[in-house]
C-alpha cells in the first residue's frame, strides 16, 4: 500500500515537514527533525529507483484523475536517478551543515533556514517527479524562491545583491518557461508531458510550437546557468552560506538540466527537434563556449568559491554538450556527468566550507600552506580537483570518457579535441590552488596542524570516497544512464 503511494510521499514528506520547522523553532531540534526527514526521503527515492529498474515506469495519478486531465507523477529511470541524486546529497549535506549553519547563521534564524532547505528539496524533487508541464513550473518556483532566501542568508552583505540578481534572472527564466508552456497548451490543449510528446509531432511546422520551444529553451537555460545566461551563478555561489553552496552546486542546476532534457526529448523528442531547427548546433556551440569561458574565467579568480562556481559553468557545458549530441552515448554521458559532478562539486565545496570554518577565508592568498594545516580537507579537495580535470580513477574521468566516445561515434573528432583542451584549462585552475596549498612556503602563517572537525570531515569524505568509487566501478551509474538515454533518444529503444 505504502509502496504504491511512494511517488507522492516523496514530495509530501518534505513539503509538510517544512512548516513544522516553524513550530519547533529550537535550532538543535529543528536540525534533528530535518535530518530525520532527509534520511527518510533517501530510502524512498532508492526504493523508487529499484522499483523502476525492476518493473519499468511507475505512473501515479493524483486524486485518481487519469492523465491528461489529471496531474500524473511519472517515475522512469531518468528521474528516479535524479531523485536519488537530490536526496543523497541532501542526506550528506544536513549532517555536514550543522556546525557551519551554527557558525554562519544567527541562532534566531536557524529554524527558518531549515524550513527553506526542506522547501528547496521539495521543489527539486517535484521538478524531477512530475509528469505535468505546468506542475513543473510550480515546483520550479518553489525551489527557486526558497533558494533566493537561502542565498540571502550569507554573512557577506553581497549575498543580498547576489540573491536579488538571482531572483530577477530566475523569475525571467521561469516566466519564459510558462510562456512556452502556454504556447504549447494553446496549440495542443494538453499539459501532460507524455501527451504533449504525442501531440506535438503532428504540428511541428506550426510557428506556435517553434516559439514555445524557443521560450522553453531560453527559460530553462537561465535556470541551468548555461553560458551566456550564467551571470547570476558566480555571486550566488560565492556569497551564499557554505552549506547552501554545497547543496545548490550539487543539485539545483542539475535538476534544471534534467528539466531541459525532459523538454527536449520528452516533449519535442519525436519530431527530432535537435535536427529540425538549428537548436542542436546552437546548444553545442553554447556548451563548448561554456566549457572554455567558464574554465578560462575560473583561472583568474582569487576567491576559491568563485573559482569553483565558474568551473561549475564549464561543467554544465559538458552536460549540455552530451545532450546536444542527440545519441544514446552522448545523452548517457550527459546524465552520468550530472551524477558525477554532483559528487565531486559537493565534495569540493564541502572542503572549502571546512576551510572557511577554520580560517574564516577562502581567498587563495590566505590558503598558503593549507596542505599542511588541514591535510585531510586538502586531500579531499585534491581528489575533487582531479575529478574535475578528468583524471582516471575518478568519476570525472568516466563522464569525459563517454563524452569523447560519443563525439567520436558521431564522427565529430574536433569536438573530442575541444573536450580534452578544455580539460587542460581545468588542470590550470586546480593546479593554482594545489600549488598555493602545498608548495608555497607558509610565510607568516603558523605551521599548525589544524584539522577540521570530524563532523565536517566524514560527510566530505563520503562524497569524495564516492567520487573515487564511481570512478573505478561505474557499471551501476552507466547502466542507469544508458537505460534512461535509450528511453529518451528517438530510435534508441532497445
Amino acid at each position, binding site marked *: 500500500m505504502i509502496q504504491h503511494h511512494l511517488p507522492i510521499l516523496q514530495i509530501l514528506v518534505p513539503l509538510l515537514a517544512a512548516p513544522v520547522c516553524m513550530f519547533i523553532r529550537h535550532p538543535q531540534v529543528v536540525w534533528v527533525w530535518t535530518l530525520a526527514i532527509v534520511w527518510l526521503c533517501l530510502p524512498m527515492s532508492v526504493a523508487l529507483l529499484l522499483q523502476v529498474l525492476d518493473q519499468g515506469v511507475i505512473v501515479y495519478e493524483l486524486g485518481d484523475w487519469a492523465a491528461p486531465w489529471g496531474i500524473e507523477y511519472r517515475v522512469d529511470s531518468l528521474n528516479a536517478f535524479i531523485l536519488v541524486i537530490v536526496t543523497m546529497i541532501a542526506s550528506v549535506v544536513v549532517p555536514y551543515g550543522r556546525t557551519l549553519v551554527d557558525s554562519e547563521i544567527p541562532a534566531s534564524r536557524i529554524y527558518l533556514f531549515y524550513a527553506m532547505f526542506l522547501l528547496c528539496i521539495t521543489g527539486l524533487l517535484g521538478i524531477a517527479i512530475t509528469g505535468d508541464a505546468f506542475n513543473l513550473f510550480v515546483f520550479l518556483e518553489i525551489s527557486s524562491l526558497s533558494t533566493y532566501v537561502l542565498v540571502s542568508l550569507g554573512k557577506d552583505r553581497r549575498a543580498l545583491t547576489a540573491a536579488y540578481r538571482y531572483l530577477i534572472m530566475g*523569475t525571467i527564466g521561469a*516566466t519564459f518557461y*510558462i510562456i512556452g508552456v502556454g504556447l504549447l497548451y494553446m496549440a495542443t490543449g494538453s499539459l501532460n508531458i507524455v501527451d504533449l510528446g504525442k501531440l506535438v509531432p503532428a504540428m511541428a511546422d506550426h510557428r506556435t510550437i517553434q516559439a514555445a520551444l524557443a521560450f522553453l529553451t531560453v527559460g530553462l537555460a537561465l535556470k541551468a546557468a548555461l553560458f551566456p545566461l550564467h551571470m547570476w551563478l558566480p555571486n550566488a555561489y560565492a556569497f551564499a552560506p557554505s552549506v547552501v553552496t554545497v547543496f545548490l552546486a550539487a543539485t539545483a542546476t542539475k535538476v534544471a538540466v534534467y528539466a531541459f532534457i525532459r523538454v527536449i526529448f520528452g516533449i519535442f523528442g519525436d519530431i527530432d527537434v535537435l535536427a529540425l531547427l538549428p537548436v542542436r548546433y546552437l546548444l553545442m556551440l553554447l556548451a563548448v563556449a561554456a566549457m572554455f569561458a567558464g574554465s578560462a574565467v575560473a583561472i583568474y579568480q582569487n576567491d576559491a568559491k568563485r573559482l569553483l562556481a565558474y568551473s561549475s559553468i564549464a561543467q554544465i557545458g559538458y552536460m549540455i554538450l552530451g545532450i546536444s549530441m542527440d545519441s544514446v552515448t552522448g545523452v548517457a554521458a550527459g546524465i552520468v556527468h550530472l551524477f558525477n559532478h554532483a559528487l565531486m562539486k559537493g565534495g569540493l565545496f564541502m572542503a572549502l566550507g571546512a576551510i572557511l570554518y577554520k580560517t574564516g577565508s577562502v581567498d587563495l592568498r590566505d590558503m598558503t600552506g593549507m596542505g599542511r594545516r588541514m591535510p585531510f580537507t586538502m586531500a579531499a579537495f585534491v581528489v575533487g580537483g582531479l575529478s574535475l580535470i578528468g583524471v582516471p580513477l575518478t568519476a570525472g574521468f568516466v563522464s569525459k570518457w563517454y563524452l569523447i566516445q560519443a563525439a567520436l561515434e558521431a564522427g565529430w573528432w574536433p569536438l573530442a579535441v575541444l573536450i580534452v583542451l578544455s580539460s587542460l584549462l581545468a588542470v590550470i585552475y586546480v593546479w593554482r590552488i594545489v600549488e598555493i596549498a602545498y608548495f608555497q612556503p607558509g610565510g607568516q602563517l603558523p605551521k599548525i596542524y589544524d584539522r577540521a572537525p570530524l563532523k565536517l570531515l566524514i560527510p566530505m569524505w563520503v562524497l569524495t570516497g564516492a567520487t573515487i568509487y564511481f570512478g573505478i566501478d561505474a557499471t551501476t551509474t552507466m547502466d542507469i544512464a544508458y537505460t534512461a538515454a535509450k528511453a529518451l533518444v528517438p530510435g534508441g529503444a532497445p
Partner: protein
Amino acid sequence: MSLDFPGLFNYWLIIILMLIGFYIVIAHGNLVKKIVGLNVFQVSVFLLYITMGKVEGGTAPILADGIEVYSNPLPHVLILTAIVVGVATTALGLALVVRIKETYTTIEEDEIDAMENQG
C-alpha cells in the same frame, strides 16, 4: 472581430506590455523599478493565458439552463497559481530590497556596484 488588426488585438497588447516590462528590468538601475518591470512582464503573461482561455460569447463554466458556450477555465485556473507565485516573488524581491537598503543605504544599482568593487 471587426477590427482591422492582423491577429488578435489582445496579443498585440500582451507583446507590447511584455517588452515594456522586460525593458524596464534590463534598463533601470533602481531596484524597486526593476521589480515593477518584472511585475509588468509577468502580468503580460497572465493576460496571455487569460486570453487563450476566453471563448467569444462564452460565460463562466457553470452548469445552468440556457448556457451553451463556456470559456475554458483551465488556463484561468493555471494563471491563478502563477499570480500567487508572482505575488510571492514580488514580496521576496521587495524584502530583499529593504535589506539591501539597510546595509548599503541605497537602492541604485550603480552605487551598489561601486561600493562592492571597492571591496
